[in-house]
């Protein structure tokens, strides 16, 4: 697509804010099969040293790539590689929920040996002013 022509390292290609509630966590638990009670029971979360119920790391990883998928015209098949490090918990308050913001920036532009143009998109996912994912990188096919 023409939107990708003239793309430069450092360009912000997508931004989105996600509002999470306990309901979001329960839906993710059911959809993924991850029923660890630290994602829906405060008493259990506190008993293992957490401040309270937190989002599944895989939910944060799953939603953080969505702005990039949308930028790719909705074609998640153009995601060639996606990695993150889980660095901080996203605590989801029972009443207030939690807001996670994602900024996606071009990190590297590269042409593969077979001639395919790719980009490494670097994600910054933040909650409460602090990043929650480290080395969050999505390699995508541009054509």
């Amino acid at each position, binding site marked *: 697509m023409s939107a990708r022509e003239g793309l430069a390292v450092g360009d912000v290609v997508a931004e989105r804010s*996600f509002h999470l509630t306990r309901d*979001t966590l329960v*839906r*993710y638990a*059911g*959809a*993924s*099969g*991850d029923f660890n009670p630290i994602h829906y029971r405060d008493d259990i979360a506190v008993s*293992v040293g957490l401040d309270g119920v937190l989002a599944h*790391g*895989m*939910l944060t*990883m*799953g*939603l953080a*790539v*969505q702005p990039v*998928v*949308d930028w790719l015209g*909705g*074609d*998640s*098949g153009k*995601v*060639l*590689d*996606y*990695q*993150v*490090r*889980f660095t901080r918990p996203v605590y989801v308050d029972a009443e207030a929920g939690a807001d996670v913001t994602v900024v996606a920036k071009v990190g590297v532009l590269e042409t593969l040996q077979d001639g395919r143009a790719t980009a490494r998109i670097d994600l910054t996912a933040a909650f409460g002013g602090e990043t929650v994912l480290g*080395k969050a990188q999505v390699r995508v096919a541009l054509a």
Partner: protein
Amino acid sequence: MPVNAELAGRSYPPSPPYLVGREKVREFARAVLATSPLNLDPDAARAAGYADVVAPPTFAVVVQEHTLAQLLDDPDSGIDFSRVVHGDQRFSFTRPIVAGDELTATLTVTSVKSLGGHSMVTAETAVLDADGGHVVSAISTLVVRGGE
């Protein structure tokens, strides 16, 4: 009990075939707040050249999960699940997962390291389709917190 240092290089038997259902993909897509029609609408996915709805990138974890359970349930691994924290995650695709795929997954432990009293176990799960073609590799590092 510490993590078994001999674990590196160990593989587990392939998981039973996992049939990717259209409604499961749609349910998962909504759960990760995906909005792309290719994840939700079979007609839109077909128009884009796919056989059916396309799974969001992290859907592969649903298939990988069965193989991580093999590792965590192995009494010889020495991994105490109550001390496990998910350190990092990676998916490396040959092609996206699409509804209708029948997938099998095989986990291999690629490394076991010690760091400041903790153990870091890295496991790579290769996910193949019914024809034996590679679909995606899912790589996790589990941090097993050390005892008191």
